[in-house]
């Protein structure tokens, strides 16, 4: 089968030594097994995330994202821009849609882009890696490489915010999307189907600036997973993963709880189910050790 090619936008948190660097190896294994070729956008820049609005005006943020889209038009023509990061995807897609809707913003954007020697015509589509998996590969084909079904594992599918809103995955609801549960079942595990915190906000960037308020959110997200008998939480989002995993120890310290719920990426589950080892799955990067995945690899 010919490989499907995409212009890949990794995002800042997925760089080597950054907070989601352990997401990357499993994306590599997963895409390899599914004949997906990710071609990194040369010299991509930050999308300005959701917190960029404070200092950066609307046009500044549009221009940052437009630069990445223009780099795709120039260097990887004909390919969709694909990101594994919900914030990168959201910012880029908002930009692509806004600029194609409002001619004056497109003109202003191009005037600024000229300073960096670039031009945008607006032909590139911005997609999430999950969209590629579901729409271009499909659940059947994603199931084929499974050699080690994750039997006996119960997993809470935590979709979070920005993978799900405002765009989400086509055909899914904002309040109770099903695809992550389907992916859990696809790799042979059991989905904690009644998990109430599926689309709750982890606090996002405010985990940093408003820790008390965010940790209340995080505690709910983790405790509900315990209530449903889950062995671990799975998420498609870098910030959800980091916030929900690393602040559990803080919550324990302040509130006397005993939270220790592993939080993994969907691609880590797939890599293990596809027969990958712990290094390929990036499990050495999890602070709270997902022991049951290590047991399956053995």
């Amino acid at each position, binding site marked *: 089968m010919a490989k499907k090619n995409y212009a890949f936008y990794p995002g*800042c*948190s997925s*760089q*080597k*030594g*950054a*907070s989601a*660097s*352990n997401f990357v190896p499993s994306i590599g294994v997963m895409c390899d097994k599914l004949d997906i070729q990710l071609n990194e956008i040369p*010299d*991509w*820049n*930050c999308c*300005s*995330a*959701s*917190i*960029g*609005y*404070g*200092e*950066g*005006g*609307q*046009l*500044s943020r*549009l*221009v*940052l994202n437009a630069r990445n889209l223009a780099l795709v038009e120039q260097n990887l023509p004909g390919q969709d821009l694909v990101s594994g990061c919900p914030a990168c995807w959201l910012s880029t897609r908002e930009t692509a849609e806004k600029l194609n809707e409002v001619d004056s913003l497109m003109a*202003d*954007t191009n*005037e*600024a*882009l*000229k*300073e*960096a*020697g*670039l031009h945008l015509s607006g032909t590139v589509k911005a997609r999430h890696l999950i969209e590629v998996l579901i729409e271009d590969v499909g659940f059947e084909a994603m199931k084929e490489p499974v050699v080690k079904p994750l039997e006996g594992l119960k997993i809470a599918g935590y979709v979070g*915010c*920005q993978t799900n*809103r*405002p765009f989400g995955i086509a055909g899914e609801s*904002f309040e109770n999307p099903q695809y992550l549960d389907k992916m859990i079942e696809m790799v042979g595990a059991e989905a904690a189907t009644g998990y109430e915190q599926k689309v709750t*906000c982890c*606090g*996002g*960037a*405010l985990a*940093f*600036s*408003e820790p008390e*308020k965010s940790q209340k*959110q995080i505690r709910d997200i983790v405790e509900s997973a315990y209530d449903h008998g889950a062995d671990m939480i799975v998420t498609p989002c870098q910030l959800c993963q980091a916030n929900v995993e*690393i602040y559990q*120890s*803080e919550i324990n310290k302040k509130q006397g709880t005993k939270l220790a719920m592993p939080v993994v990426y969907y691609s880590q589950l797939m890599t293990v189910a596809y027969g990958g080892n712990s290094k390929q799955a990036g499990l050495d*990067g*999890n*602070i709270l050790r997902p022991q049951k995945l290590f047991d399956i690899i053995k």
Partner: protein
Amino acid sequence: MSELNQKAVAKYENNFLREVEERVEDGEWVKMCMQCGVCAGSCPLGNAWEHSPQKLFRMIMAGKREEVLTSDAMWMCTSCYSCIVRCPRKLPITHIMHGLAHYSHRLELAPKGQPTRELARIFWQNLVKTGRVNELKFSLAVYFKDGFVQGIKNLLSMQGIALGLVKARRLNPMEIIGGHKCRDIGGIQKMLAKAREIEDRRQGFTS
């Protein structure tokens, strides 16, 4: 009062709605709000808002300029987009909140030292420097924003988490002396300066 604020007051006199429509991102949607309150009930940090989005919309229409622009309410937005997808009139509420926060920051009316305002400022300064976020420098800048002593206290309280991340190779101490960056930093900075110049002109901040 900042110069930009004085000019804005003079230009719009008592028509705050028009000011928001012309100068705040997606502000032209504000008058579409029908006060149903779904946004207020959907916000994960709802209890922390001095004024809910619903109330802010009404206050804008009522000309409560000072109360709106000096409030820390908009800075409670986590960008979860729940309000956007639930709004029966499809108002881009998240964007309007971002726009109000940005505008109050530009006019120097936003509360001084408001933690998310400071976080946003530090984040932007960080990304503009190299074109990409340097998580180590970003975190350190956030911890030390209230001075050296508080910074050390913050570091000590977070050391367990930080060491865990370093051990998992998700925080690289070497980023302090360089780290990831774009090749065309010069082009990116010129492009952003141009964007700011155009935007200031369009919004009437400069002639």
